[in-house]
């Protein structure tokens, strides 16, 4: 799957990220990949998204009139993470094989001389991904009551990906990771320490060791009224306990003020029934609350990291500044969840 500059024949990339330059480099790369020198690239434009990666959409037009809308995802030149995007692309291919809805990967490479940074090119999936639209758009009226169940099914498929089909993923024990991250941040906050202690004392037996999407939440799926078209943003994928993905989907922040505990649109039982049916894993409902608490703590830690990036000047942005002040929202949720964990 992965290509090198040698394959393409000449250096096509550059350090600059002018859209014109990128269009030229893309044209060479896609022409090589599709063995069609007549391919032209047009309408290259950045897509919005909160990811640390750059995302663009563009048209690949062939002389025969076959036009395809594609998506380019790449590391920002200068802050590349070699291996990471290729791992992500391979995982998306494995997810497709497992029957999960994912965009079809066309091409990926770590070779920075092609586009200036590691990248993946995939098909553009039409649909709605904005979380607030997913909650309120009248065009999705038919979908909303069934969405939690559909996501449970998709998770069942993602968690069935054979580990050997997803090389390069790191195994993460969430509680250990959170402890290390809190220590590294040097943040001493009583509510977070309380959550940490309760999680350590009540840690359940693992539900298995599977691929974990790692950011399976409202905002990272593309839907239409007829169903879930694609699960996107595989950047935080790792190996771990499958229930982590279910817990993360239920974190209150990702409900965007919607009434349902699952992503703002669904009920716990809808998600659990569909997941149990698809995966064959049956579990006590209280276990999901434990994971919801662990994942809520995860969001508090991630918010603190972003606030620290603002404070240290590595990423000055209004969003990150405000996130620091909003950690108390997550702490409120943690205190509420602590009451529902068995001691």
């Amino acid at each position, binding site marked *: 799957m992965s290509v090198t500059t040698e394959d393409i024949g000449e250096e096509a990339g550059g350090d600059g990220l002018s859209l014109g330059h990128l269009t030229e480099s893309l044209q060479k790369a896609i022409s090589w990949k599709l063995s069609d020198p007549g391919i032209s690239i047009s309408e290259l434009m950045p897509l*919005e998204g909160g990811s640390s990666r750059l995302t663009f959409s563009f048209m690949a037009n062939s002389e025969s009139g076959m036009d395809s809308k594609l998506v380019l995802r790449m590391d920002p030149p200068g802050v590349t993470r070699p291996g990471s995007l290729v791992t992500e692309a391979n995982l998306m291919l494995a997810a497709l094989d497992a029957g999960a809805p994912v965009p079809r990967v066309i091409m990926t490479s770590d070779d920075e001389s092609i586009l200036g940074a590691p990248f993946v090119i995939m098909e553009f999936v039409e649909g709605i991904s904005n979380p607030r639209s997913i909650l309120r758009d009248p065009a999705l009226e038919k979908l909303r009551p069934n969405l939690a169940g559909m996501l449970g099914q998709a998770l069942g498929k993602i968690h069935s990906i054979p580990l050997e089909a997803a090389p390069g993923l790191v195994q993460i024990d969430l509680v250990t990771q959170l402890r290390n991250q809190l220590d590294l941040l040097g943040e*001493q*906050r*009583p*509510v*977070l*320490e*309380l959550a*940490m*202690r*309760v999680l350590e004392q009540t840690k359940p037996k693992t539900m298995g060791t599977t691929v974990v999407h790692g950011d399976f939440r409202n905002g990272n799926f593309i839907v239409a009224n007829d169903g879930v078209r694609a699960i996107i943003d595989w950047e935080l994928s790792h190996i771990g306990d499958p229930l982590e993905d279910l817990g993360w989907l239920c974190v209150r922040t990702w409900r965007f*003020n919607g009434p349902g505990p699952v992503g703002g649109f669904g009920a716990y039982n809808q998600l659990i029934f569909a997941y149990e049916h698809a995966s064959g894993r049956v579990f006590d409902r209280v276990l999901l609350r434990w994971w919801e608490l662990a994942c809520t703590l995860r969001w508090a830690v991630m918010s603190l990291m972003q606030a620290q990036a603002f404070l240290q000047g590595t990423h000055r942005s*209004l*969003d990150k*500044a*405000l996130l620091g*002040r*909003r950690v*108390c*929202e997550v*702490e*409120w*949720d943690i*205190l*509420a969840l*602590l009451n529902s964990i068995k*001691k």
Partner: protein
Amino acid sequence: MSLSDAPPVNELINAVMEYIQTEVVPDALGEKKRLATIAYSVLAVVDREYTMGYKLNTDYAKLLASVGVTSEEELAAKIRNSEVDINSADLKKALRQITTMKLMIASPAFLERARKEAEAAQKRQASKAENQDG
């Protein structure tokens, strides 16, 4: 008594907030609109901290004293080192109150929503218990 002349700080902050709300947000599009709205929210935090911060800080010190500490860092260390009973009702009450006060400055809309949700959940719980008793 203050060295600075009028208008006072909160009036200045409010003037910028009004400008963002009436002049910037309506004409901005996409990302610029989103960021202008966030800029407004950031100033609203500053405004509330300026207005309520002094009083809340005094209450905050009293709450910390009620659980035998002088700072949140000290309390966090005690929780981590098992020097306090993590199931203590007093501890949970103090943490809930501290979090509430932080939210009063940082996110009063969240606080209002969360309180309503908690009340509704309590009512559901109570009626469930009543049904079981009956």
